């Protein structure tokens, strides 16, 4: 969570990429990455200058944040026509407004079937998230005097901490002041828990400040969120107040939720240019990973290891890792060796391994299943991270897994609990991945027409399913598979497509601008879709999307909803993955051009093998998820919705 880290008071933060300063006017680059084009977003709440591009995603379980965001989303000008749809989505998911989809196609005849399928999916969802949505959807749509609410909040704030500057630029102001105040408290007492608490408080205060900034706009939009908004906003102020009062009463009431939140918030991602932390984590590490010597300056904060030696080192430790479950170990080795790649496959492999872990698990005496199993899974996860950084979808799956463990009723016996957990994993795989893929395929197949030329990049399993399904439906189309070095993932896709009798064109990404002339649709997979609409995907995706955009070819991203993430990312620098530099230094099968071989440790040569890139949402025409298709216009609001829907 880089964005989060940046905002914290940790002094050693390395600020990479676009960083918002307390300066109320965001730098000009930031506005470029806002995904709605400048000229079109005059009515949305997002172009107000104080909406910082590096937004801190609010803590999940704060329903007030959710309702706030939701209400802000509804406040988009055309919301009056869409509000019913929102409610629809909550009730019957999978429906989508055909008028909104860019291509304007009628709903396909089998969409009702899809709906029923998807709604079973959601039924499960709803159990967790019903609280939030009922809160969100219950407010009356009537005109509301929001200004009073706002004023009340302001007076509250001003009464308790006069230094907070409300209104525009409030976010920055609050943050700065909190830094000062917190540094005072830090000097006073420095127990870990308290420091943590102040951080949490700042975070909450910041969220409050942001809400202040956005609220007037929401009011201007017309549809006013009401008492729901007001009541939680008071809640929200509480921790902030606690921090400024430098609390004698802090040990009291608001401790339990704090702790809860602590559990919920993932720890900040490690910055690998922070030598102290790296050394510390090396001590914990399961196996020895020599770090690559020459790293590109801009990407020093990402882990980069000397590939090759890791595997042998890990392999030699196989029998020594007593605590490691063989299934987890196997998955780890497969990640490390690159035997399993692709978001869905990695996620399924991991969950299946966890299933075996749970099956073989027995609670040690003197411990409880809930705590011990959670700790165990955490240790396995950190091992898997060592092998390869997790994808965001895996993060979601792990979070789900842990929440299921935490929510186990204490009355269950061990066998029952284990069965329930295994069942949960099965359901996660079936409903969030497999069924989701099916729904996406149905949706997307409606977008394939006879005579189309479909372009895809790399190898995405859901895009492959779409192509095969459309082919089965008897549609006449042609496929262009665009591929790139060094992985050549497209070749495997190409082989499978050809085996099914599709007519294909294979080309490399260098030629994408030539082939784009004849393409009518671009289907792309995604590793993750972030809440600002950025698509995080295999490197090269952004390039293809931009070329397609320039040629006015619609770009459709296919992504299961479990891959949505609440994080906001503006570039692919702050969080990315670095691959083996030997992969790009070496050309397989061409010994004559391997002059770069054995030069990976040369001092004045640095290799950069990025694995992912971020596609800004303005280059994406539509995102197809299992909850429906989200087109360009309403993407903004939907992402928040989806991101929160997913993380429950």
């Amino acid at each position, binding site marked *: 969570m880089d964005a989060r880290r940046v905002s914290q008071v940790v002094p050693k933060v390395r600020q990479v990429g676009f960083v918002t300063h307390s300066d109320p006017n965001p730098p000009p680059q930031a506005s470029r990455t806002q995904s709605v084009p400048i000229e079109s977003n005059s009515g949305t709440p997002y172009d107000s200058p104080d909406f910082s591009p590096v937004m801190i995603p609010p803590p999940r379980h704060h329903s007030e944040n959710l309702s706030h965001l939701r209400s802000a989303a509804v406040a988009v000008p055309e919301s009056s026509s869409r509000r019913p749809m929102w409610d629809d989505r909550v009730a019957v998911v999978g429906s989508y407004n055909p008028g909104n989809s860019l291509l304007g196609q009628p709903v396909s005849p089998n969409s009702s079937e899809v709906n029923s399928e998807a709604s079973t999916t959601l039924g499960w969802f709803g159990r967790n998230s019903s609280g939030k949505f009922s809160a969100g959807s219950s407010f009356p749509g009537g005109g509301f005097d929001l200004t009073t609410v706002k004023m009340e909040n302001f007076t509250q704030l001003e009464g308790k901490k006069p230094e907070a500057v409300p209104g525009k630029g409030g976010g920055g102001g609050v943050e700065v002041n909190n830094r000062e105040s917190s540094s005072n408290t830090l000097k006073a007492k420095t127990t870990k828990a308290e420091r943590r608490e102040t951080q949490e408080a700042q975070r909450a205060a910041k969220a409050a400040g942001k809400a202040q900034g956005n609220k007037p706009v929401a009011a201007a939009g017309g549809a006013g969120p009401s008492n729901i908004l007001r009541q939680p906003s008071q809640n929200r102020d509480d921790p902030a107040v606690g921090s400024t009062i430098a609390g004698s009463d802090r040990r009291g009431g608001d401790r339990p939720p704090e702790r809860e939140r602590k559990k919920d918030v993932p720890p900040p991602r490690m910055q690998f240019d922070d030598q102290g932390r790296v050394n510390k984590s090396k001590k914990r590490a399961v196996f020895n990973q020599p770090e690559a010597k020459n790293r590109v300056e801009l990407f020093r904060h990402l882990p980069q290891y000397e590939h090759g030696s890791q595997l042998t080192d890990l392999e*030699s430790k196989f*029998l020594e*890792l007593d605590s490691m479950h063989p299934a987890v170990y196997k998955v780890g*080795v497969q990640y490390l060796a690159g035997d399993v790649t692709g978001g*869905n496959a990695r996620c399924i492999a991991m969950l299946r391994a966890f299933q075996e872990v749970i099956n073989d698990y027995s609670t040690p005496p003197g411990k409880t299943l809930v705590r011990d199993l959670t700790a165990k899974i955490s240790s396995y996860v950190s091992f898997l991270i060592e092998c390869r950084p997790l994808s965001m979808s895996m993060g979601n799956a792990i979070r789900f897994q842990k929440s299921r463990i935490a929510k186990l009723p204490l009355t269950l016996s061990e066998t029952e609990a284990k069965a329930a957990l295994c069942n949960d994993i099965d359901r996660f795989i079936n409903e969030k991945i497999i069924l989701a893929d099916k729904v996406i395929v149905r949706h997307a197949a409606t977008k394939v027409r006879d005579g189309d030329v479909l372009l895809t990049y790399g190898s995405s399993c859901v895009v492959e399913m779409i192509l095969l399904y459309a082919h089965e439906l008897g549609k006449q189309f042609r496929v262009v598979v665009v591929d790139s070095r060094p992985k050549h993932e497209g070749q495997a896709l190409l082989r499978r497509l050809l085996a099914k*009798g599709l007519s294909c064109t294979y080309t490399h990404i260098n030629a994408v601008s030539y082939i784009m002339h004849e393409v009518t649709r671009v289907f792309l997979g995604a590793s993750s879709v972030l809440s600002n609409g950025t698509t995080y995907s295999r490197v090269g995706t952004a390039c293809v999307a931009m070329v397609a955009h320039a040629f006015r070819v619609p770009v459709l991203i296919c992504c299961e909803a479990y891959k949505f993430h609440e994080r906001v990312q503006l570039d692919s620098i702050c969080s990315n993955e670095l691959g083996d530099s030997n992969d790009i230094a070496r050309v397989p099968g061409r010994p004559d051009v391997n002059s770069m071989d054995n030069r990976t440790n040369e001092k004045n040569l640095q290799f950069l093998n990025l694995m992912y890139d971020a596609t800004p949402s303005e280059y994406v025409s539509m995102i197809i998820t299992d909850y429906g298709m989200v087109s360009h216009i309403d993407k903004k609001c939907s992402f928040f919705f989806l991101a929160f829907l997913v993380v429950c």
Partner: protein
Amino acid sequence: MDFQVVVLAGGTSKKLVPLVSKEVPKALLPVANRPVLSYVLEQLELSNIKDLIVVVEGADAALCVGGWISAAYVDRLHVEVATVPEDVGTAGALRAIAHHLTAKDVLVVSGDLVSDVPPGAVTAAHRRHDAVVTAMICSVPVSGLSEAGSSGAKDKTKKPGRYNIIGMDPTKQFLLHIATGAELEKDTRIRKSILRAVGQMDIRADLMDAHMYAFNRSVLQEVLDQKDKFQSLKQDVLPYLVRSQLKSEILINGAPQGQQAKENGNDKVSYRILANASTPSFHELYALGPNGSAPVRRTHKCCVYIASNSKYCVRLNSIQAFMDINRDVIGEANHLSGYNFSAQNNIIHPSAELGSKTTVGPHCMLGEGSQMGDKCSVKRSVIGRHCRIGSNVKVVNSVVMNHVTIGDGCSIQGSVICSNAQLQERVALKDCQVGLGYVVSAGCEYKGESLARKEK
């Protein structure tokens, strides 16, 4: 980790006569004054393996080995010593202890392996690919196959000895062909189907099978049950598995293919996602039907783990190897011996007594309680415990075991002298082996002979 370890300690190997006898089975031959079996056990202990089965051929040998293990590893390892009749071969030995094997995979290690390759590496490679068998191969020791090192140097026209002919796929992960023993003399035949499926095969003659295998237990047992003629793992079972890898006749229970995919639609999809995402090995490609439909052919994988050249890995299966290992363990590969070397790069036990003007060179070892007379010289040799060596004795490149008495004026080069042997005055030995308790009478000179008592 769900691995069981079986150490095949063998019995009294014929190849090693006269070094081995009823009292000293092969497993207890001293390498740097430690039984060779201890090197394997220690390596396993380092890898955190506490439970293992040691299989010994012959009741007498088993008694010796069992006695030694229980004395040496009493509270460190949990070792089960199983006795099998002599001459059943390695496959027969495993067949005999089949009912002890319960884990998912079995690691079979030869007891005469002196190596610092972590066994974990083999098992990890095995697990990673879900292989039925993973064999560790290492590079051929420099001295080659020839029995006596000196003769090889003179006879330059002779081809270097081959242990195995090993075929691998280009990624060096899968074993495609292995020829051992008698097959080496014949022309090599390679399966066309395998070659076609892989496309490219690396054939190496400079590698040898180190006799450390990880087997899938159920497959191993099935093969042993079905093919009751199979005698040796190395010459029968492994080549059979390698040969039949593309038209597998064995039922792998818990096979990733087939059964799982049939269960229901959703599992099938998730299986397909997994399969598509992973880079398929040639096995999977071959198994696929003509148009990429469900797998129609059954295959299994045979993997290899190639020990890197920096690791030491030699089997003690000939007298030459015994000499080489003894020299290496106190020489180049001295980290294996577990002793602390002195500044002169040798080990002299504090209780050993040296006469005046006696020199012990580097890469030497002198055991506990040994006595040496005046003006002796020892070079690159191992001398065991409680030996009594007279004056003016030269010991070069030799192994002298325990309780040996050597008279004045002897010269010993490139020889092995077993325990309790007695060399009277002025004996000159070159490239000889002196058996247990043999007495060499005074003034004799031998060259390249094997001297042993007649078995009663």
